[in-house]
């Protein structure tokens, strides 16, 4: 890196510390720089580290073991070691232990320690009384010398000296480890120190800088452009919901208007009005989610009666003939009130048709439906259906096939093949299959022509094509999703990180 660039990258504190290092051209300790620079120890330490990172300063580290007097050690220096005080007391002549203790003013612990030391040094004789044999035992003199040296900062000896170890054990001296760091200007530092200028540098440009105009007289400190930066994520539409919007736009382009409906329905709108027999297997607790402890209300009487007649094979209205022999048996209005999570968005179609839209009409609804499925790659208990109806004079099965073909083509799910199917509310009924690259052919486009038993009780007199597309399965094909459960997984890394 060129010298001028490096010079610009220095903060004022770094410049100051670098000058201090350059002046002496010798190894300096942090404390010396603190004293001469006038900066705080923290500021000096930070600046030195940064200078080292930038190759402008070198450091040398020395680990030292440091000795210092403890409070007890300081007391011993001042008053004398307990064994010295005991020797001094009995120097004039032998005394009993009680007399010595009183004269020395020692507690039992101190007295015992002093006796122990003097006995090991063979400096006293104990025979009923205490009698001094040696006035200055060498071990005592050594200890006193070490304590004095520590007290006056003149101790230069080996810190692992056995005598010193004993003083440490006796709690008179504390032994600590210390690292001493010295700093020296590097060759690169020496080359730029003389040309350092004191003009202000700006790290992060602030609003205050802008407001004050300080940036006009400052230099901008260059950054290490390779340094790590914070990880930024963005918000996007959920992939699947975004795909749904595309599907929706397609339907809108084909002339369909949106409708919505509740998630909780009565059996009437979910099943009865759709001419699904009241004993149909798909209406049992094995297939739908029933609501506990609650009941809905009956629909308008005339609608209920018409639907009931269609089920029982009676004319839906007095002036008409029966539409078919119906399902026989007796229609149970009590079952019509039972509440469940809607198992098909066709219930929305029923509510829409009950409003008697003016033909021609096209309606779509995209919403969740619920079935008691076993969870696996292709099945979920909650999935979305794209419901649609298309009614008008001359609407027929081929229009439905045309719509499915257009839908699949425009959504990019490829080839469609049709197979006859069965839904109690449509006849003829078909199922469109599309090919998933991993799973194979999947039935995703079910539909048909609404039966007269559905339309007449609702007051509709034109043919109506209807479908309830499993849009989640279609999305799996279009988006390359192998497992339907992924749609509800919401992994933020993939949701927010998709490529443009």
């Amino acid at each position: 890196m060129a010298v001028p660039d490096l010079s610009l990258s220095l903060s004022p504190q770094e410049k100051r510390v670098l000058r201090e290092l350059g002046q002496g051209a010798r190894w300096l300790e942090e404390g010396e720089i603190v004293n001469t620079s006038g900066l705080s120890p923290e500021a000096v330490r930070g600046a030195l580290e940064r200078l080292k990172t930038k190759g402008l300063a070198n450091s040398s580290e020395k680990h030292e073991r440091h000795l210092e007097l403890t409070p007890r050690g300081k007391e011993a220096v001042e008053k004398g070691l307990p064994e010295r005080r005991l020797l001094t007391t009995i120097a004039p002549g032998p005394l009993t232990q009680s007399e010595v203790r009183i004269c020395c003013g020692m507690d039992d612990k101190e007295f015992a320690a002093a006796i122990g030391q003097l006995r090991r040094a063979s400096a006293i004789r104990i025979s009923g009384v205490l009698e001094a044999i040696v006035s200055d035992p060498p071990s005592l003199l050594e200890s006193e010398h070490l304590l004095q040296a520590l007290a006056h900062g003149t101790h230069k000896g080996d810190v692992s000296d056995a005598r010193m170890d004993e003083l440490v054990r006796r709690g008179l001296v504390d032994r600590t480890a210390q690292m001493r760091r010295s700093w020296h200007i590097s060759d690169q530092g020496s080359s730029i120190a003389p040309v350092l200028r004191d003009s202000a540098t700006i790290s992060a440009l602030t609003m205050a800088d802008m407001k004050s105009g300080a940036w006009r007289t400052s230099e901008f400190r260059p950054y290490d452009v390779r340094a790590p930066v914070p990880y930024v994520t963005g918000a996007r539409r959920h992939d699947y919901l975004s795909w749904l919007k595309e599907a929706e736009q397609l339907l809108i382009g084909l002339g369909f208007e949106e409708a919505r409906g509740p998630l909780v329905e009565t059996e009437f709108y979910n099943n009865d009005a759709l001419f699904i027999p009241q004993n149909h297997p798909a209406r049992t607790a094995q297939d739908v989610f029933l609501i506990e402890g609650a009941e809905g209300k009956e629909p308008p009487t005339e609608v209920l009666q018409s639907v009931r007649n269609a089920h029982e094979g009676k004319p839906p209205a007095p002036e008409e003939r029966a539409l078919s022999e119906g399902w026989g048996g007796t229609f149970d209005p009590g079952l019509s009130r039972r509440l469940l999570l809607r198992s098909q968005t066709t219930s929305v179609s029923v509510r829409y048709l009950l409003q008697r839209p003016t033909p021609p009409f096209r309606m779509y609804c995209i919403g969740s439906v619920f079935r008691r499925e076993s969870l696996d790659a292709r099945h979920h208990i909650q999935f979305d259906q794209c419901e649609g109806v298309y009614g008008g004079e001359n609407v027929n099965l081929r229009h439905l096939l045309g719509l499915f073909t257009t839908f699949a083509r425009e959504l990019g799910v490829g080839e469609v093949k049709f197979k006859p199917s069965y839904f109690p509310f449509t006849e003829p009924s078909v199922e469109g299959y599309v090919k998933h690259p991993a799973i194979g052919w999947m039935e995703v486009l079910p539909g048909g022509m609404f039966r007269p038993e559905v339309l007449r009780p609702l007051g509709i007199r034109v043919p109506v094509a209807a479908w309830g597309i499993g849009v989640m399965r279609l999305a799996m094909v279009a988006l390359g999703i192998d497992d339907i459960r992924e749609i509800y997984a919401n992994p933020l890394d993939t949701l927010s990180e998709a490529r443009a």
Partner: protein
Amino acid sequence: MPQANLSMSSVSRLMGTALSPAELEEILFRTKVEPVEVKDDELRVEVTHDRLDLLCESGIANLLHGLQRGKSLAPLPEPSPVRTPVEVRVDPATDPLRSHLRMVVAHAPGTSTLDVDLLSELIRFQEVLHTSLGFDRREGSLGIYPMKDLEPPFVYTMERIADIRFTPLPLDGTPSREVGGKEFFEGHPMALKYGGLGRQGESALTLRDHAGHLLSLPPTLNSARHGQVEPGESEILIESTGRNPRTVRDMVGYLLLPFAARGWTFSTVALHSPHEAEGGSPLELRRVEYSPAALEALLGRPVPTEVATKALASFGMKVHSGTPRSTALVPPWRPDILGEVDLAEEIMIHEGLSSFSAEENSHATRGRRLPFSRYCDRLTEVLLGMGYQEVHTPVLISERAALEFGLPESYLRISNPVSEDLGFVRTTLLPSLLGVLAANADFGYPQHIQEIAEVVVPDKASEIGSNTFLHLGAVYAGEGAGFATGMALAERLLRVIGMPGIKEPCELPGAIRGRSARIRLVGEPVAVVGEIHPEVLAAHKIPAPVCWVEFDLSLIWRLSGHT
């Protein structure tokens, strides 16, 4: 959908020709049958709920024969010359249990008799019908008996169990001994499974002939003495009992198909019952009227009379052409043919769906999203612009998650959940959003997520016991995610909505006490803001503070003058 295992060799024998698996798959794709698996002689099929006739070998053979050769294997049942009229009397005492009964006698053609092929098909098909249409015998059940030892008229009644002596039909070929009714109902495996359907208190349903022979204890089991059918029989009594007259009629109707496909004829058993007018007779051919013009309108292409006649005949129907309406006579094993539209579908299948060209829609209508949906979309965009990632979560939540944020009575509960984790319908998006945060705890912070989705709130006054509302939920997780952050977001949304909100303190379940607020518009509570309690976060293993904002968009939309 209903499934059955069929014998391919039996199908081939009935058709008089064999099909390769590839040919079979290709033809069946044109129909409502899905070949699930073909392995050696076994063909496993799945059929749509309306075509239970295809769950037997005769049904498949009849369908394939019709499609390939244009002719049904099973002609419409013709009345058979009967030596002695057969009658059955239904005792009104059967009313509380299963009062509906239908009977038909099947007669072998010429000198032929019941063979092993037909007998095994009848036994398999009978069981398939028990499970599917009969709802495990609850709605309807079937029985077949050799006529030669029986003395009509028959009596279907209730008898004291203590008076019944019964030799159960052997289940595994081991001869059985006669037992008392009590012993049978208390110990026999079939009685333990189905006995409850045929007994009430100390009495049970019985079917006897004039001589007092006990044919069966419907719907549990036939008698070994008079209810065991063996190959070599030339007359078979077919019986069905149940709770639903239509089901009872149709079960007999379906079981006629294997006989009809082998040329057997049928005779009626005169019914004397309080319910004889209900449901109709299995042998009474139903007449379905149609107009060629209506078929044409439905299918979207011309359906000449000869095309319709040929198609319907190939599937076993007989057409009487007329103007302006024709009539199709429908065999008893096709109860799915209810009206004109069903005939249209028969023609569609016969012609093949691939021969129907798709047609572009011709009517001009104006497509549009609901204004409310567009409104919600704009709010999603606002939150996306603020860095809130859109997520998509299910509506059902666990009891634990639900009760963390509300009292049990504030939720709609599922009476038959698939698991404990999915037993409640959410009333707020918060549990779902916390679930997303928990699943992404290793992703790094901050995290901002949003969702506009449905919640369901109980409402006894509503027609459907509840109201489905669209809520907007947003959570922010990370350093600095406190109440003020949440309120700042809420205020931003209020500015977008363009309505001034009034804040008031409240205590929200799951939020830190003193750090949650409700926002009112025109006096109505439309939003909540809260700082989530660390206890809740710890329970979800979310290692970051979280604030939450939730708006009731349905209510806001209404308050802003829309419907």
